[in-house]
């Protein structure tokens, strides 16, 4: 098995930056079956949901200096993708686009999600994290022919939304 890919986002976080893009870049560069070892200044809970959706389990350890080391291990995957049907979220492909909207002021999440969807082809799936249920987004998704599924995380603080892009209009 290949060694875990190591990514230290602590410098980014200490400079007040947003490491989400760097993490997703690293994830996309992983070889099949490769793990990702991440160093962060806090326990990156929202990331666990994103990574779970990508098929990764995690093991989080608190380091002596208070920072966190998280190892994301890919779950064993069954091969042979089933056909993706809009009405059945279980049949959708793994998300290929990610948006963290938790720090955005409304209605920015709605604008960002709809803009991203414009660039996606039919059947592609986006995962978005939001600070609240985007009730005004749903009619627009419906009107544009996209399918979606979403729920709150266990703490009820973040809303997890998966959108499957519909046919290009």
């Amino acid at each position, binding site marked *: 098995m290949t060694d875990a890919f190591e990514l230290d986002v602590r410098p980014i976080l200490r400079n007040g930056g947003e490491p989400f893009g760097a993490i997703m870049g690293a994830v996309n560069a992983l070889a099949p079956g490769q793990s990702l070892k991440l160093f962060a200044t806090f326990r990156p809970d929202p990331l666990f949901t994103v990574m779970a959706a990508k098929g990764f389990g995690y093991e989080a350890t608190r380091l002596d200096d208070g920072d966190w080391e998280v190892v994301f291990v890919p779950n064993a995957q069954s091969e042979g993708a089933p056909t993706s049907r809009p009405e059945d979220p279980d049949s959708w492909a793994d998300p290929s686009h990610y948006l963290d909207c938790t720090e955005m*002021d*409304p*209605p920015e999440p*709605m*604008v960002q*999600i*709809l*803009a*991203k*969807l*414009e660039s996606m082809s039919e059947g592609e799936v986006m995962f978005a994290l939001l*600070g*609240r*249920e985007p*009730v*005004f987004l*749903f*009619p*627009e998704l*419906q*009107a*544009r*022919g996209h399918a*979606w*599924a*979403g729920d709150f995380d266990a703490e009820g*603080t973040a809303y997890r939304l998966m959108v499957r892009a*519909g*046919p290009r*209009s």
Partner: protein
Amino acid sequence: MHMATISRWTLAYFSCALVALLCALGLMAAGFGYPNDGLMAPRTLVVVHLVTIGWLSLLMLGALLQFLPVLIGRELVWPRLPPVVLTLLLIGLVLLLCGFLALDSLHGLSADILPFGGLILLSGFCLAAAILFTTLLRASSLPLPAGFVMLGLISMLVTVMLGETLASVLAGLVGGDFSLALVEHGVGLHAAFGLGGWLTLAAMGVSYRLVSMFLVAPERKGTLTAVAFWSAAVALGALVGALFALIATNTSWPLGLALTGIAAVLAVGAYLIDIAALYRTRRRATLELHMAGAVAAMGMLGLGASLLTWALWSGIESALAASMHVLSLGWLGGLGLAMLYKIIPFLTWLECFAPLMGRITTPRVQDLVNESRAAPWFVLYFAAELAGAAALFLKVQHVFQLTSMLQLLGAVGLVVQYVRARRLADLPTAWQNHPRPRLILPATRKRSVV
């Protein structure tokens, strides 16, 4: 999936409500009602019901039709009924006001119109309650703000039934000891259920959600919210007890009323402290104009509640009138005007630009308004409210007419801003040629051709 579409009739409710507000302020400026007339005089009752039913109840129902689904994440049931409710309420209100004028024996009308109008109002409010209750009951869980709305709706029904009984008594359809007791003690209960139970509790519930949404602050779920809710529930329970005591024994129940007062003060106090915390935890650093206006309105709630407590304690009639003015036009009316300054641009923005979002650059909601132009009208409205309340307390008729005129001017100024937002008049030049939406009835959204 839970979704919130634009409620097609909400703007029609808002428009009728604003017309009623302008009429009421116009009548006050013309010297109609208290203090020229008595506190219970028919002409005063015309103004009071124009404000409470025409302005505040229509405003609240219009807002609930739009935001109750947002509050609980369920679609509104029976979407065809809201225009029926609006029609019933408008006809009922006009007949009720004519009934009061008939009591004033000025217009050769029969006072029987009064309970007849009340009956139509009753049917309208019952239908509204049916829509909103059924929607509420479909929620998987009821957050506390929705609980406030539920208490408010129950109070609304009690208010209207009590009002209809009073109308029957005033029209001479019901007589005997009960009618005397009702006129003596029932009017206060009617007002408490209406202004306190219905309008204030519903406003608290809706404001919890709107304030956290517009300020981007975490929702309040702590002890203070629970204290506010349960105190309000106790206050309402004691008030219902007082009502039953009145029906059963034809006398008032001072202990129940005292309990109502104490619990209501506790509820208002907890709510105000809780909302202050909500403002402090907001992520949006600068306070937009509508949220600053809401602060002024909540200040009016504190002032009005204190004034009311003192007025009931001291028994000074003009203090009671002033407190009612502050609570209805300062707190509820001020909050309504402030929220409309956000809700109307927001609904317009959704209607005009949601279909284009992600495809072209769209304006922000704030681009639909011009705050520096609207701010002076808010200042005028609230300043006139304070001056008007002082004039009422001191019973200086001419000053009160002047302040009412200024308050009317402030309200007209704000209505112009709402119309400008609807007309996309304040948008930056890049969108100046965007097609204007209809002023009152938004177009229904069709599913795009895929």
